[in-house]
């Protein structure tokens, strides 16, 4: 993998995410980059489903939320370390996705998309009533939970670096899958599932496997993110709007491309952040974002990378 130029680009991005705020110590920049990194994780793992396999998962945020819940439970109720909690959350949500996938991945197109919306809502409603998870009032983290990481101030830096590492892991996972036999099978499913099956791709298993994989890192990041927030509540964890926004990020950058997913997520975060604090647009940020999205869908359906590839086809080999 290290032979591919893109591998080094990913490493450079990780280094920049670590070094720029790390050296300057700029917490504001860190917060903005952190959200960017979380979005990159969401978008690039969603890309495994939409861009690689051709299945539109509208409820992708359920993985993030469930991961957050499981992790926060392990930290607050069982006093596990946040790292172990995060790993266990990732693994258990992946397992959940695997089982779920064997059921709902029989559906195609709009039916699958609808089912994923339903699952997100069902999980959200169930968690709201599930008292070990605090039900509707969620779970609050005591400040003492930050103590093992050197207090809140220090902890937030460490969590940030950890999320950046998971961001890097997401990008490298995407790259590894793209250049593997597994990835080739997924692309075949995306292009024509029936043809892929006839060519020998064991589609039901492949789809479930990628569904489970695409759940792993978002669930891990979910734990870290809500740990950092100090609070987890159902409506924050299973926010359908964020789920759809993740698709928007992917479209913005160009589905199917790793760089596109990351670029779209980062730009979208910056853009929304800018609208939010800009006195001119703050009242109409939703409208402006909507118009932008509509323009992309109508006039630039390949997203940013689609446009780049058309203008500079040679970049296909570099920016994967």
């Amino acid at each position, binding site marked *: 993998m290290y032979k591919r130029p893109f591998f080094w680009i990913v490493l450079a991005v990780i280094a920049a995410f670590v070094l720029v705020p790390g050296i*300057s110590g700029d917490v504001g920049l860190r917060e903005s980059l952190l959200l960017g990194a979380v979005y990159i994780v969401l978008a690039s793992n969603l890309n495994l489903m939409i861009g690689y396999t051709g299945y539109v998962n509208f409820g992708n945020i359920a993985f993030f939320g469930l991961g957050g819940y499981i992790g926060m439970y392990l930290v607050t109720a069982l006093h596990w370390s946040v790292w172990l909690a995060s790993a266990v959350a990732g693994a258990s949500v992946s397992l959940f996705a695997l089982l779920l996938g064997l059921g709902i991945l029989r559906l195609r197109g709009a039916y699958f998309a609808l089912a994923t919306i339903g699952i997100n809502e069902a999980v959200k409603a169930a968690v709201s009533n599930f008292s070990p998870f605090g039900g509707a*009032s969620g779970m609050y*983290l005591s400040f003492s939970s930050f103590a093992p990481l050197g207090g809140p101030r220090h902890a937030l830096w460490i969590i940030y670096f950890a999320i950046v590492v998971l961001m890097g892991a997401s990008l490298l996972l995407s790259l590894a899958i793209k250049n593997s036999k597994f990835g080739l099978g997924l692309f075949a499913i995306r292009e024509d599932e029936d043809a892929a099956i006839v060519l020998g791709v064991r589609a039901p298993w492949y789809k479930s496997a990628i569904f489970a994989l695409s759940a792993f890192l978002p669930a891990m990041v979910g734990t870290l993110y809500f740990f950092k927030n100090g609070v987890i509540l159902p409506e924050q964890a299973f*926010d359908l709007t964020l789920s759809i926004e993740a698709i928007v990020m992917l479209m913005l950058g160009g589905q199917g491309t790793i760089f596109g997913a990351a670029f779209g997520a980062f730009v979208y975060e910056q853009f929304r952040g800018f609208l*939010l604090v800009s006195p001119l647009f703050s009242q109409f940020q939703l409208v402006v974002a909507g118009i932008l999205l509509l323009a992309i869908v109508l006039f630039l359906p390949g997203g940013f990378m689609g446009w780049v590839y058309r203008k500079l086809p040679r970049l296909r080999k570099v920016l994967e």
Partner: protein
Amino acid sequence: MLRMSAMAVTLTCAVLLAAPFAQAKTLTIGFTTSETGKLNADSKPQLLGFELWRDQVNTAGGIKVGSKHYKVALKYYDDQSSAGRVQQLYSRLILQDNADFLFSPYSSGLTATAAVVSEQFGKIMITTGAAEGKTYRLGNKHLFQLYTPADKYLKSALDVIKAKSPKAKIALIYSNDGFSSAVAKGALANAKRMGLHVVFDESYASDTTDFGPIINKIVASGANVLIGGGHYADGSTLARQLHDKKVNLHFISLLVAPDIPKFANLGEAALGVTVPSQWEHSVGYKPDFGVAPSAFTKAFEAKYGNQPGYHAAGGYAAGLVLQHAIEKAGSIKTAAVTKALNGMNAMTFYGRVHFATGAGDHGLQIGHDMVLAQWQKGANNKLVSQVVWPASAQTAPILYPLKTFAH
């Protein structure tokens, strides 16, 4: 990357340039407010309260610290009713906008999220509209809660029931959200302690619009008083449907919703509904410092053209309490102001303010009491909100039991 670091440099320069001016004469208070999203209705009045206070302070020449006078500037962003960017925005308020003090967002969930940042930087945050007690039990040192904690919300309603019909069958129904369930949990414990009879206890999804099924269950339970509710949207819908479905109840007390003046738009459905309120414009508190309740109400009406509810008063009071503590400390240093706040036990237009100082619940409000307000018919049949409980704050006698429907 290059561009990003360039951006960072520019921002840093801007901050450095702006800093001396900010220090000279202006005190910046930062917070987020829900300009969009579902908390907007509850969050907006709070913002109006902040702004009224700011205007009054500045007109009066600012906050007096020793010999210096500080003008107040409010800096706020939209949190979209969601925690997603709250930490980013509070970091920005602290680091880029150089906020000296902070107010909380609306709601306990957002406040706890913001507190992780404010505590991290050791910034004082006066919370208003964040009633849940557990927010203040996380090991925080710089949070100060203005509201009576959630578990005491329905205490006055239970007092009324105990006094008027101790044998009443109580239905406790509440929105399945953090604040409302905390209120309900507290109420249930209180009712038990007081020997009252809760016959029905159930939550509903917070985005419920059709209360038909749960109302039928209330009827089936034989309950004759109802307490509970949630926020404005569900509470007003519940009140409307209780009326539409002609449920015969002696007494209704709902959280939050009936305190918003728009509640009167429900017309007949609003009549007789009570609300546990942090504050009512008609209360007769004699403040140790700052405006009197009537003066606040008059100023608010003059500026915004409608009566203030308790969210608005809470906003104003947050500013007032902060101002008082700064003036008393004679400093804007966190340690000094914290000390002043820790020592505060005073009556304001908003009621008593006294913060817990123990390690386990630092900043929890322990001095403030709720009142119970009721929508009644006033002159020319217009609905007005009257304080009906406790007797000391009463502006009108309570309507109890309510008019029954003929079936």
